[in-house]
C-alpha cells in the first residue's frame, strides 16, 4: 500500500476542488445569467473535457506547452520550468479536466433558483454580490456541494493525463491510479489489489454519501447528462 501516492492524490483532489470552487462559481454564474447570444460557445468550451479523451489534453500540455513552443516558453520564463513533471502542471491539467464537473452542477443550482426571488432582492436594493451571497447561493447549495464533490472524486480517478505528462515521480506526480498501473505492470497483484480495493471502497462511499444526503443535488446533475 503506497500511502505516499494516496496522500498525493488527496492533496491534488483537494487543491482541484478548491480552485474549481473559486473559478467555477463565476463561470457558472455568467453562464446562468448572461444573455449574450453566443453564450452557447462558452458552454461548449466548458463542456469539452467531458468529450475529449485525456490523451488530447495530455498531448497539448506535453508538446504545446513544451519548451519548444511559444506557450511553453512563456510558462518557462514565468515559473522557471515547464509544466510537465511538476505538481503544478498536474494541478492545471486536472483543473481543466474537471472543469465541467464543477461548473455544470453549479450552473444547474443557480438555474433552479426562483427568478422572482432574485429580482425581489434587486428591487429591495441589494447589490448583485449581496443577492448572490444571501439569496442565490443559499438556495443552490445542493448544486455547489455536488460540483465540489464531483470534481474532487473525478480528480482522484484521473489517470490518462497524469500518465502522459506526470513522469511518475514519487511524491510529486505518482498518483494512486498510476501506482496501481505500475503494480499491475510489474505483476505485483497483491499490492495492486490492496490499493484498488481501497479506491473502490472510497469511490463507493463518496457517491453513497452524496446520493444519501443530497438527492436533490444528484437530480440536478442528472438533468445535465
Amino acid at each position, binding site marked *: 500500500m503506497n500511502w505516499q501516492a494516496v496522500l498525493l492524490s488527496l492533496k491534488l483532489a483537494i487543491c482541484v476542488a478548491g480552485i474549481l470552487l473559486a473559478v467555477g462559481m463565476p463561470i457558472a454564474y455568467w453562464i446562468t445569467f448572461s444573455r449574450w447570444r453566443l453564450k452557447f460557445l462558452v458552454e461548449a468550451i466548458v463542456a469539452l473535457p467531458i468529450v475529449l479523451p485525456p490523451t488530447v489534453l495530455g498531448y497539448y500540455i*506535453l*508538446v504545446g506547452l*513544451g*519548451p*519548444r513552443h511559444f506557450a*511553453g516558453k512563456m510558462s518557462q520564463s514565468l515559473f522557471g*520550468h*515547464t509544466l*510537465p*513533471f511538476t505538481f503544478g502542471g498536474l494541478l492545471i491539467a486536472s483543473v481543466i479536466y474537471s472543469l465541467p464537473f464543477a461548473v455544470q452542477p453549479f450552473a444547474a443550482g443557480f438555474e433552479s433558483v426562483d427568478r422572482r426571488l432574485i429580482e425581489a432582492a434587486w428591487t429591495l436594493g441589494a447589490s448583485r454580490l449581496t443577492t448572490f451571497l444571501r439569496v442565490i447561493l443559499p438556495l443552490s447549495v445542493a448544486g455547489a456541494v455536488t460540483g465540489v464533490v464531483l470534481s474532487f472524486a473525478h480528480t482522484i480517478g484521473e489517470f490518462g493525463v497524469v*500518465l502522459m505528462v506526470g*513522469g*511518475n*515521480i514519487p511524491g510529486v506526480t505518482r498518483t494512486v491510479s498510476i501506482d496501481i*498501473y*505500475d503494480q*499491475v*505492470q*510489474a*505483476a505485483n497483484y497483491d499490492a495492486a489489489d490492496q490499493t484498488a480495493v481501497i479506491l473502490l471502497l472510497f469511490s463507493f462511499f463518496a457517491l453513497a454519501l452524496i446520493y444519501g444526503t443530497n438527492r436533490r443535488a444528484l437530480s440536478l446533475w442528472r438533468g445535465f447528462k
Partner: protein
Amino acid sequence: MKNTRIKVAWVGLAAAVLLAPFFAARAAIESMLPQVPAKPCGTVTVAAASDLTFAMNEIAGQYQKASGCSVQLSMGSSGNFLTQIENGAPFDVFFSADIAYPKKLEAESLAAPGSTYLYAIGKIVLWARNDSGVNVSKGFSALQDSAVRKIAIANPAHAPYGRAAEGALRKAGVYDSVKSRLVLGENISQAAEFVESGNADAGILALSLVLSPTMKDKGRSWNIPENLYAPIEQGAVVVLSSKNQQGAKNFLEYIKLPETAALLARYGFARPANASSGGRH
C-alpha cells in the same frame, strides 16, 4: 416509466435514422471493391516491446511482402504485455525487451515449450537534443550540470530499459546525484518522447529508438559502456493460446534469418551469439 420508454424509443429511432446512411454507404463501397480471397496463412498478431517500434514495422512489412501473410502489430511495454497475456490476451507472438518474461510464460505453461528465442541484445545510450545545450559526449558527468533539470528513463519497476538505465547510473556512482531529477516513462518510447519534445533535458534511451528517422538528426548520443549494465537480453515466444500457431512459428522463424538479424543490427541491436545457428536460449 411510460415517459422513459417513449424517450428511449425516440433515441433509438434517431440513432437508426442517423446511422442508416453510413451502413448503406459501407455496403455500397464493399460491393464495389474486388473480392479479395482470404489469405491461407491468416493474420499473425504480434505484441512487441516499444524499443522495437521502428525495426518491427520494417520487419513486418518485409515479412508481409515475402510470405503474403498479414501481420498485426501492437507496440507497448513488455511488462504490460506479460500481464495481458497471462490474462488471456489474443496475441500469437510476444517480443519482449526482457527474455525473463517469455521464460516466465513458458514456466507458466502459457507459451509453447522451448519456443523462447533470444533475438537481440539491446543497448542504452545517453541522449540529448542538439538545442538542449547538454554535451552528452562528456558521458554521465554531463548530467551533473545544473542545466540538466529533468532526466528521462523508463520505469525501472517494470521496464527492462529502465532497469538497465538505473543499473548503469548506480554502477557509475552517479545515481544519488541524479535521483531527484529522474522522470519515468511508462515504457522506453515514452521516455524518448519526453526528451524528444524537450520536456526532459536528457534521457537514457534505447539505441534502437535514437537511430530512428524521427530522432536521428535531432540530437546526439553517448554510448553507455556495456560493463555498466547487465545485457538487455530480448526474447520472443509463441503464445500457447494462439489460434494461429503455424503463422506464429513461421514469423518467429523469419526473425531467425540472417537478413532479419542484420536488419535488427542496423537498428542498433547487438546480435546474440546464437543468432547464426538459430539456436535456442
